């Protein structure tokens, strides 16, 4: 069935290509060199969430991320038809407990060299090691772990989403610009929360803010609706957020949503909340409309019937980075594509008012980061005045001289 569909689409494509080219020889299956085909794999590792997000608005969707990759594919193919390039996307969803490494290896064996990976850091590293000797490039679209860009960096991985440090720095710059420099940090008990809190501490130190108090929330949470304990968590927030230290803002590090979403409006002191709740840093905002983003949002909404989430944008970036490189290199040669993407000539226009490029020392895509609440972007970092000798974007995250990444 799939083969038939692909044949049909190839036929349509060949027809388009021949009508566009001035003297195009008629396409036949024996002469496939006419069209450069780029195979992109998408691996989505499902994760056993301890509980659903506290707000049903944030419930995971089946096409989270994949919808972005599909739009990227459409965009690539719209451009590709003028250059006789065709992009194909194969999506694999790996269930909880499934073998993402085997999925990646089978894709590589089938000739897929560009793999978009939506998986937690340990799985991403396993895949990276498993395809080490192969012509394969991985695109991390969901793991924010800074270590993946630092001591655990891999030469065959590019990161199209910002790291925890980049996100924390974006938030910090905004507060420093706002002169809200006294922070009360509260964080959860999971390892992710500890890393998140570390990133906040580092950002405070880096940009001249002060963490005047800290508190850990030790409960591990429960099911979203059935656990009567959630009522208690809400009720605990006023007392939990009490601090003797005078603070401008409460920064929450609770990546697993045990208590974070309950913090706003329940604080002991009337203070704004930021971090994983309240004012939040992200690679994308569903209401962002500057810099031509309206068209992108419209295009996505038409296709997916919903707004763009950050992971959709991250996946779109990965597929577009591949498309942009194929367009410029005019080849499907793996080495050329990989070198081009990491090289100084590569740049991506991605509705952020300036080009995005990869940091050559750790494979991280440079980002402007939006700081926003549920409804609207509030600001974009880097904030004016934070300068850097290469690009202001490098004021976000760990910079080259301090990087521990060695390929």
């Amino acid at each position, binding site marked *: 069935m799939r083969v038939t569909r692909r044949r049909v689409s190839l036929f349509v494509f060949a027809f388009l290509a021949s*009508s*566009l080219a*001035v003297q195009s020889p008629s396409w036949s299956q024996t002469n496939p060199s006419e069209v450069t085909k780029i195979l992109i794999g998408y691996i989505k590792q499902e994760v056993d969430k301890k509980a659903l997000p506290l707000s049903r608005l944030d419930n995971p969707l089946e096409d989270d991320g994949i919808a972005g990759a599909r739009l990227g594919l459409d*965009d690539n193919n*719209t*451009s590709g038809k*003028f*250059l006789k390039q065709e992009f194909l996307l194969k999506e694999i969803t790996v269930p909880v407990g499934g073998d993402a490494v085997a999925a990646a290896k089978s894709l590589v064996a089938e000739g897929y060299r560009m793999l978009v990976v939506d998986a937690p850091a340990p799985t991403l590293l396993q895949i990276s090691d498993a395809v080490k000797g192969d012509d394969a490039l991985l695109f991390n679209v969901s793991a924010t772990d800074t270590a993946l860009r630092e001591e655990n960096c891999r030469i065959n991985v590019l990161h199209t989403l910002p790291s925890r440090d980049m996100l924390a720095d974006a938030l910090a710059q905004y507060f420093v610009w706002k002169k809200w420099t006294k922070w009360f940090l509260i964080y959860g008990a999971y390892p992710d929360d500890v890393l998140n809190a570390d990133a906040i501490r580092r950002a405070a130190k880096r940009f001249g803010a002060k963490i005047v108090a800290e508190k850990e929330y030790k409960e591990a949470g429960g099911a979203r609706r059935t656990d009567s304990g959630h009522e208690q968590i809400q009720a605990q927030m006023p007392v939990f957020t009490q601090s003797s230290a005078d603070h401008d803002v409460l920064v929450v590090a609770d990546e697993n949503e045990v208590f974070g979403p309950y913090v706003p409006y329940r604080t002991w002191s009337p203070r704004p909340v930021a971090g994983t709740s309240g004012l939040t840093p992200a690679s994308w905002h569903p209401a962002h409309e500057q810099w*031509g983003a309206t*068209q992108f949002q*419209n*295009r996505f909404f*038409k296709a997916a019937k919903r707004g763009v989430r950050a992971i959709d944008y991250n996946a779109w970036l990965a597929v*577009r980075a591949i498309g*942009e490189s194929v*367009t*410029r290199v005019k080849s499907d040669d793996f080495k050329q594509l990989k070198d081009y993407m990491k090289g100084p000539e590569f*740049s*991506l*226009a991605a509705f952020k*008012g*300036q*080009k995005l490029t990869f940091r050559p020392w750790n494979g991280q895509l440079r980002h402007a980061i939006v700081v926003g609440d549920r409804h609207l972007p509030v600001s974009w970092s880097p904030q004016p005045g934070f300068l850097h000798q290469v*690009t*202001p974007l490098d004021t976000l995250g760990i910079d080259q001289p301090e990087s521990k990444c060695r390929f």
Partner: protein
Amino acid sequence: MYERRLFALGMASLIAGMTPAHAYKVFVSNEKDNTISVIDSEKLEVIETVKVGDRPRGITMSKDGKHVYLCASDNDTVQVIDAATYKILYDLPSGPDPELFVLHPSGNPLYIANEDDNLVTVVDVLNKKVLAEVPVGVEPEGMGISPDGKFMVNTSETTNMAHFIDTSTNEIVTNVLVDARPRFAEFTQDGKYVYVTAEIGGTVSVIDTKTREIVKKITFEVPGVAPEALQPVGLRVTKDGKKVFVALGPANRVALINGETFEVEKYMLVGQRVWQLAFTPDEKYIFSTNGVSNDVSVIDVKEEKVIKTIKVGRLPWGVTIAPN
């Protein structure tokens, strides 16, 4: 005797000074206000503000100067406005979300870029009918047409191409890859070159219209301005092809390029986020719309300097000037 002569001379020069140079009407679309500002090109002041459709952006004039064509992007239509009475006469079918367009040198048809649909829509302005839809790259925007009307160039912002379209068949004949986010295409009057600006790439590509190859890529550099802020958008060329003016967006400058050497000669400081440009028909002035500072700058083309800033509506986007 001497005194009388001096007096006569004085009178003569006074009279000469009083004889007004031809005043043209300058129309500026204000994206945020849903209005257009009408400026008198000699008085250099706003003489009228006209309520129009939602999110007005691309704006141009009919060749006889009687009509203003305006992309009312959020209404998915092109409005036709009487240039004398400022009344909205009727709408043209435009396809969704029209942003920029170009009129055939003969005055008909109108070629419209539909950003959301990856299409260029060809519209007969007299019969108010869609003649053709040309599929192009992702997010079509810039629209230029050769002086003989035989070819038009559309730029697509995410595909990063200049598409040459044969206007007799309405089909793409050549695609030229340019830098990131191409925004605007403008032919020289002799038809030899087409200039294409790339906002995110930060360059202007000069394409030879015969070979359809890039003969020069112009880059910009302003001391004290971050390189990523140098974002070329609107571009206009004098009729003799010698002076090329480029709006540099958030760099708040208009660059002047020598049309013979393709070297940047000068940067002129204008208002904030400079977007589009238009010459008066006598090429005495070129006007720039400055989106963030809500004004237009008037540049004296001969003197190569900004002579005045005029306050208009909010988010001024496009500008067109009556030919008569």
